[in-house]
């Protein structure tokens, strides 16, 4: 038996004739495959094709996202953020205040934010909101919405074109653009949009941005452009 085994290597020849060479080859292959997987994983990671895509990836990296909800599901305080993607003050809030709220209150699990996209400014608000909700189908609502606000144009100027929306989708880290295009036409997005309008009506929201804070201590509302201190006080009030 042993004699037969001893003869086998010389019969095979090449790399397999030396177990040590074969091991070196396997280690090399393993390193290349693992490195390839690591590199490919970066394409789904926090990076986009633009600088703003990268920033957005970093801002939301590591924070749970589900649909239009940002933050841990069991966070004690919920902020319902009523906003219109064409609204300039909403854009200012998203660019200037929201990142601080995300870093100081959402990341730690104290607060979750639920976006309620409204479409009262004009007809262009509808495709913008639908596009963000379609990104939400892949749990990428927040980075997409952030990019919409980062690249916001003049209200009702017609800047919300299909090309514009697709460009934001391409810059959204981790978003499958093909799937997003298909979700954009789906009835789920329509239902979510209608639900947000109905919710705003029943909550008496008539301006954007409106922030409704809800927690074990009750509810409170802020309208306009609050700074982080006002938001922090409202969180403490309902917590």
């Amino acid at each position: 038996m042993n004699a037969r085994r001893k003869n086998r290597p010389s019969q095979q020849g090449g790399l397999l004739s030396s177990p040590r060479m074969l091991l070196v080859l396997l280690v090399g292959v393993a390193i290349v495959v693992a490195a390839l997987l690591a590199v490919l994983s970066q394409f789904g990671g926090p990076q986009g094709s633009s600088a703003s895509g990268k920033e957005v990836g970093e801002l939301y990296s590591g924070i749970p996202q589900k649909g239009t909800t940002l933050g841990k599901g069991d966070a004690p305080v919920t902020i319902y953020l009523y906003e219109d993607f064409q609204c300039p003050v909403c854009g200012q809030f998203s660019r200037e205040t929201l990142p601080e709220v995300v870093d100081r209150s959402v990341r730690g699990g104290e607060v979750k934010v639920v976006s309620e996209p409204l479409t009262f400014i004009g007809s262009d608000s509808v495709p913008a909101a639908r596009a963000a909700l379609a990104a939400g189908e892949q749990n990428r609502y927040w980075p997409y919405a952030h990019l919409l606000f980062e690249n916001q144009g003049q209200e009702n100027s017609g800047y919300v074109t299909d090309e514009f929306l697709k460009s934001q989708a391409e810059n959204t880290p981790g978003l499958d653009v093909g799937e997003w295009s298909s979700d954009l036409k789906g009835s789920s997005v329509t239902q979510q949009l209608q639900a947000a309008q109905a919710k705003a009506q029943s909550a008496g929201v008539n301006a954007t941005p409106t922030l409704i804070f809800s927690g074990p201590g009750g509810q409170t509302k802020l309208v306009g452009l609050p700074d982080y201190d006002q938001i922090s006080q409202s969180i403490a009030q309902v917590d």
Partner: protein
Amino acid sequence: MKGRQRGIRFVLGALAVVGLLISGYLSWVHYMGVTPVCVGGSGGCETVQTSSYATILGVPVAVLGLVGYSGLLLSALLRGEIGVYLGFLLALVGVLFSAYLTYLELFVIHAICEWCVASATIMVAALICATAEVYFSGTQTS
């Protein structure tokens, strides 16, 4: 010697089955869109599973785990040197990639998923078994 090798293959196969259960559960969680059960309720699993690193080119990392552990199980069932070296290759790739994922959890995502830690530990144990198999296979043929 053969009895010892059989024992190692059995352990390798058992580790692959446990790994399949873990990656199967995480794949199910991914496709069902539910929150994974996290020991201690820290929410780390949810954070890791919903991070942008949870998929590679649209394929969930958990599904890659399913493929890897299936290969590992196959290597434990295969007779001869092909099984030995296939197990070694898969376990080494698994350990290297798990090390990278653990780095992401600690320094990029800032959250730890216990399921991922368990999978990484299984991969390390599988590599120890696979290396032992290569060693005993070498001593038998030399």
